[in-house]
């Protein structure tokens, strides 16, 4: 691909990862286990934060976007990383690592001092009660289907102190998914 074509690619924005495609992919891999009819599996979007696996119900995810240049909001609360422009729509982008005690302070990702974002980093655009909001994730793993029997309540030790962002644990094979309540995680 020529350099020019790349430039054009940049110019024409394309959502590179379509959730719908992932869903199809996940549905195919899951065909064998859908034997018990009374157990309706729910779909979750799994992603990584500082190496840990987290998941949110897929219905709260509106879309997944590459990290565009973010603009910092002066004097904003710490967990607000900045605003992004998604096809003309202005969206706030939040950090949830501090709330989950995965990091001491939010990363500097906006403004002239910010380094270019890591290749795999994505913004999940979540539907929340107060409008859409972006959440920075280190990478998106894919869609997992979890049946009610695969879910556990979060062990008390795992709970983050002030807010119950973690609603439970999903276990699927060897992997553990920490299930998040997006409203709580984004509450200011």
């Amino acid at each position, binding site marked *: *691909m*020529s350099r*020019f*074509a790349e430039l*054009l690619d940049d110019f*024409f*924005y394309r959502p590179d990862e379509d959730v719908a495609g992932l869903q199809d992919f996940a549905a195919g891999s899951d065909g064998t286990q859908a034997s018990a009819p009374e157990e309706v599996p729910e779909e979750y979007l799994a992603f990584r934060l500082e190496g840990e696996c987290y998941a949110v119900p897929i219905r709260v995810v509106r879309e997944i976007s590459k990290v*565009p*240049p*973010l*603009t*910092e*909001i*002066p*004097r*904003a609360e710490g967990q*607000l990383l900045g*605003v*992004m*422009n998604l096809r*003309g729509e*202005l*969206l*706030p982008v939040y950090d949830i690592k501090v709330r989950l005690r995965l990091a001491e302070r939010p990363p500097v990702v906006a*403004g*002239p*001092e910010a380094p270019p974002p890591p290749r795999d980093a994505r913004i999940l655009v979540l539907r*929340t009660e*107060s*409008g859409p*909001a972006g959440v920075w994730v280190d990478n998106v793993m894919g869609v997992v289907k979890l049946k009610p029997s695969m879910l556990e309540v979060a062990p008390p030790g795992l709970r983050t102190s002030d807010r119950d962002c973690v609603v439970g644990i999903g276990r699927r094979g060897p992997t553990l998914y920490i299930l998040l309540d997006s409203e709580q995680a984004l509450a200011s």
Partner: protein
Amino acid sequence: MSPGSKALAEFVAEATEILDALGKDLLVLDERRGQEADPELVNGIFRAAHSLKGLSGLFGQERLSRLAHGTEDLLDRLRLGRLRLDDTALDSLIEVLDAFQALLAEAARGAESESLTRRVEDMTARLARLGSPSVSAEEDPLDRLELDPQVRSVFTEYEEHRLRENVRRGVSLWRVRAAFDLSDFDKGLADLNARLKPLGEVISTLPSARPGGAHGIAFDLIFGAQASGEQLEAGLKGTPAELSPLVVHPATHAAAQALVRAAEPATVRASMGRVEAPEAAPSAPAKRGGKKKGARAASRGDAAQAQQPLLPAPGETGASHGADSTSAAPAPHDALVPVALPEIHPVADGEHVAPGILPVAYLPVGGAAQRVRAVISDPPAGPGAPPTGVAPGRPEGDTSLRSLTQTVRVDIGRLDGLINMVGELLLIKANLQRLAESARQDGTVALSKLFGQELARETRGLERKLEALQEGLLEARMVPVGQVFDKLARLVRRITREAGKEIEFVIGGGEVELDKLIVEELSDPLMHLIRNAIDHGVESPDARLAAGKPRRAVVALRAEQKGNHVLIEVSDDGAGIDEQRVREVALTRGLITFAQAQEMSRREMLNLIFLPGFSTARSVSELSGRGVGLDVVKNNLGNLSGIIDVWSERGKGTAFNLTLPVTLAIIRALVVGVSGRTYAVPLNSVLEILSVQPKDIRTVERREVLDLRGQTLPFMRLARMFALPERPVSRYFVVVVGLAQERLGIAVDELHGQQDIVTKPLGGRLQSVRGISGATDLGNRRTVLVLDVAALLEEGMALERRRA
């Protein structure tokens, strides 16, 4: 949006439209108080109330529907002449309109307050009781009209009433008979109606007794003419209409006495209005009618008269009579000429009287300024007129004038234009896609110059189309400020009454267009200013006379477009503001120090009225001038990036000048850089830009200020305010911003130039962010924040006050 709330929104939008129309008609009636009401207008209001009733019923709005029903009843009685449209009735109607607005506001909120329900019930009951019976002649004037009872029986009550009215007034009545082809009779009839309208009143349209041919249909239009027969003929040229006058017998003696009284002023005016040889006049229409009929009869070869059951007096006799002499006119049955009140005034035949007793004397509609008179007479006019005008429990007149609906009506042509533009954009997109595809397929092959040129051409086209689209969309958002002015005009009437003053309210420039959003936000500040002008600015009539001014004060509201801004002026010719009193009040309230007061110019003192905390309820009565919550007005305007200024001269009056941007959606902005970040400052609040060396910055009591042409300018470093890493610079650019009365210098590192930007609000989650009003795109998907100048000013001032 749920289906329920969508339906509600539609209901509110539609009801608002009906109320707007109703309000406009009422205003016209109000302006022509004391004159005979235009039946067309009353009927229009009746229909509006009727549609409102239906609409509210449909949407289950019980209270609205009930009140509308009561109003409809009242209007029905009015238009049928069972009730006279006196001041009491008119006041009640205006009051009902207010109640409708309040009800609709509650409906929009989904609320239902007890007090309003009670108020509506009282009002409905009052409407039902309302009424002074109309002056009715002892004898039914309709009996004097020679009309087939069969025809008369098919009239609706309203038509019969109108006909009776016309006979009573002695308007010349004509039957206009027209035959149309069945295939397009509706068009022909509409055309005929349109032609007749300016000439008088179409009282009824009936199917004609005469067959209209194999493929035709004929109609008889009963028409009360305001114009002479000749004018009528001329107006109907080219239509298949045939004219024939209807005969009205002279009134019997008893009724004639009443008519004398009724018609006296009219006849005087009629004789003044037209100078024409009286002998010739009455015969003219008759002859014409006769000739015409004769001609037609000859050409058709059938007896036209036989088929005119409505016209017992044959045309030929009339014609010969007319030719004979005018002295024959008083004799009943003889005159074919529409004879009105012959024994009162022999000269005043139909065509002479008609112009004099137009039911409505239309006010000349001025081109530039529309005048609304609101003269207040002392309320209790007589024992028969209970003072219903001022209802007990009427809420204060400070309800918001903001419309309840968010809808903008857009001309379909404009939308079509936009759609066309989108179509062209799609074409450009296809071209660009093709170019992208070919670039991809060529792979590493060096791109030709031709390719580059083609791409450049397409992007230029894209740019042009996008600009046009932007412009088109902005235009679609524009509405005339007159929308608000009309509402204010209604309000003025009420405030004037409450204040007991005589006001002439002058409106100008209602056609100037502003963004819908701004027009909406403007209504409350304007209401406030006008209220102030009437309550405090204008003196009482006696005081005015004593000061050698005309008794009636003038309050004016004018709009004018100047480039990208609209100037709106609210002025009065009242007593003006006493700046010394303003100074005293500001001193006693501790808003300024004595030292500050010492060195204040007159203008600065006047501007003290905009300070928050300047006005309290107590100061209203204390202060001869004004000052009710002007800080609120200033704030509202600040939110619209508007500036307010005041001019006042003792004894001459006061004027508030509001400067507003035409639109908020697209603004011109100054792009500045601070610590490597980029921000946009709305250019309409930028006064000037200075280049300042760090050594020029002074400190006064540890706050930084600049010396700007001998005046102290508060100064603020944006980097420091926003807690950004400050970079050492050799000189600052200071953007001097001003909103309303305040000035502030904002220091930035770089200036990047000016640009038109489309601001987007920060949205729900970011509402609490201070100092930023929105964000915009400067291309390249990079988001740039737009500074909220009003908030920064406020912050800067607060900082200053705290330090001071």
